[in-house]
């Protein structure tokens, strides 16, 4: 027979899912948040996102091409996702050179030194962000107030984030009921009309992305739900104990990066645990750490740190927390 047949072990079929499709699925899920941030922050949002994405892709390309000398895989979309997530974690008026430094840290240090996609223990975008936060604290914490396209890139009016307002206020001995006039209302927060980093402000846009990820089965509910749930429960307890000193759960969820972190950062495949049981433990860990940092720590925001800390535990969880196997025998049973 002239026709030479292929032979391989079973299965002879493969699902439609590929790494690339999953990554681009995440990009699509990020689009609503991107649009709202452009709506609120105007040119700044566009400049920051483009810079971050382009520099992430460029660093990945350069490293793979000239240092690894292996086939370049920037088309798999993982650097694109990192670039977008990094941008979403930045204020919209941050100088371009800082973004480039941040992308370098994300891609070159947090991802490539470990061997590239699949091997990095820490979420690259978060490592980049935390690096920037520590190195450029001033630029990283001057948040432009939403003004759409009415102001330019560099001359945006800046204000504090709701979390920072509360942190500062409490430190100065004010009580929450006094501060409440300075912070946005829950509905404003839900729509994203407040100061903050680009991607984290609009809760509704992030939730749309979440729904998309769930429907497309790109992520499962375990991590986001356990993060949000544990934050809610923890802050509820604190709030009930002392409503004058502690903000209510709704505020904690909507303010700052909880939703962005829970939906997009903590669920990063590579750096999150792989089975549902550990996913829930991981999520609860992030939730609790976030609240601890927010309420007792030096920084007003704690999601990034919490996720990075829990990232460190992931290999341990993968090794020791096992799913219950089918047909696992109960002892003496």
């Amino acid at each position, binding site marked *: 027979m002239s026709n030479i047949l292929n032979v391989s072990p079973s299965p*002879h079929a493969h699902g439609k899912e590929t790494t690339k499709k999953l990554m681009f699925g995440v990009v699509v899920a990020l689009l609503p948040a991107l649009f709202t941030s452009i709506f609120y922050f105007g040119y700044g949002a566009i400049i920051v996102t483009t810079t971050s994405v382009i520099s992430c892709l460029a660093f990945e390309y350069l490293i793979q091409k000239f240092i690894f000398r292996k086939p370049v895989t920037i088309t798999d979309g993982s650097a694109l996702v990192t670039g977008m997530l990094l941008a979403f974690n930045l204020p919209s008026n941050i100088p371009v050179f800082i973004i480039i430094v941040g992308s370098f840290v994300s891609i070159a240090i947090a991802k490539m030194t470990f061997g590239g996609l699949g091997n990095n223990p820490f979420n690259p975008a978060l490592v980049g962000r935390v690096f920037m936060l520590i190195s450029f604290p001033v630029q990283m914490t001057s948040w432009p107030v939403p003004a759409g396209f009415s102001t330019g890139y560099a001359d945006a009016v800046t204000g504090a984030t709701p979390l920072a307002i509360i942190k500062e206020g409490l430190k100065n001995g004010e009580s929450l009921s006094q501060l409440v006039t300075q912070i946005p209302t829950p509905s404003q927060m839900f729509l994203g009309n407040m100061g903050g980093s680009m991607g984290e402000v609009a809760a509704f846009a992030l939730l749309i992305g979440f729904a998309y990820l769930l429907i497309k089965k790109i992520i499962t509910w375990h991590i986001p739900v356990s993060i949000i749930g544990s934050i809610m429960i923890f802050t509820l307890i604190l709030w009930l104990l002392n409503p004058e000193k502690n903000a209510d759960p709704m505020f904690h969820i909507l303010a700052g990066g909880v939703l962005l972190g829970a939906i997009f950062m903590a669920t990063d495949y590579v750096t999150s645990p*792989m089975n549902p049981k550990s996913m829930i433990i991981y999520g609860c860990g992030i939730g609790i750490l976030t609240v601890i940092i927010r309420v007792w720590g030096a920084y007003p925001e704690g999601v990034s740190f919490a996720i990075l800390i829990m990232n460190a535990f992931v290999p341990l969880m*993968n090794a020791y927390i096992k799913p219950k196997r089918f047909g696992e*025998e109960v002892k003496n049973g």
Partner: protein
Amino acid sequence: MPKTFPIGGVHPPENKITADTAIELLPVPSSVVIPVSQHIGAPAAIIVNKGDYVKTGQKIAESKGFVSSNIHSSVSGKVNKIDSIIDTSGYKQTAVFIDVEGDEWVETIDRNSEIITEVRLSGEEIIKKCLESGIVGLGGATFPSHVKLTVPAGKKCDVLIINGVECEPYLTSDHRLMLEKGEEILTGVTILMKALKVGKALIGIENNKTDAINHLTKLATIFSGVTVHALKVKYPQGAEKQLIKALINREVPSGRLPLDVGTVVHNVGTAYAVYEAVQKNKPLFERVVTITGKSLSRPGNYLVRIGTPVSWLIEAAGGMPEDTGKIVSGGPLMGKAINNADVPVVKGTSGVILLPKDESERMEISRCIRCGKCIEACALNLEPYLLMTLSEKGLFEKAEHERITDCMECGSCSYICPAGRPLLDYIRLGKTAVMKMVRERNMK
């Protein structure tokens, strides 16, 4: 709400192209090749010689040992030679080559098409008949049926499960059989119940085959103890342990058999074969085979004599399409790719699928992105990504600890992996190594 098994599973596209094509009789080819090892267990010993004249249904190889099976000639004619041929196992196996002359059946076979529902034989006689007629599990595993029907002392079976799930994409042979031979199958089920001494039989069918469910439900009213159950479509529902879990919510412990939870699973095809053996005295020498493929001009379900070369079957279905890249014997997820079209149809061949070139290449392998989709897909909640790494590195003790031997090789993990990693390839490798290791340890 249709039932299903609780954990894991995937939903490959069904592609049941031939679901509405009635079973046709495939003309007898001019020569057949009958391998002596078509079942799990010891190969049968050949009892004919070169030059002998054999009749259709005549025994040509005898079972060796308890777990083994008789083999019968599927045609009448002269034994041309006894030689080896590459069969679906991928290696050369001893086989009997027969040149067909006419079609003369052994006289004891009742060729009347009238359906006999009354079971006259006793339990023991039924089991003996199954052994005699060379009945094996026709779902694909080809485990000798008489072994499965013999309940060892100390074990109890209280319910029989009949597998009409056919969860593999493309395949429709069981589906057609249920539609066209419903009454025979139900009689076969009654026979199996009698052999096992159980009063209850559950037939599980996925609800993409509503016509078969309705048909059998209607017929089942006259067979006492037999009920038909619709199941949600999900692969690998046809796996014994998953089907048991779905139907009667019992979980077979790892490393044990269904009998340990008081049940036995048989395929509908097997039930039909048992009917024919017991009521019609007809040994297993032909079976329904689905021949299908997207570019095949006349895909269909054929009643095929064992030993017919696959190429003959492909001819009948309109000839091999130009773009054929791979021929799979069995379903696309668990079947075996064959390396040439001369491979004979054997008892376990439930279908032959011709995959076009673009579907027959594996995708490029990239790094594991640790998405956990393989864990999610595994119906046994194993961690395929880990098992693969362990097998690749040769860490077999650890792999054993992670229960690599539980893997039923369903292929869901390789199917779902977005990075195209050959998970099952390596798991199978590790599993073989671990089983060998365990065997050696037990010998000591």
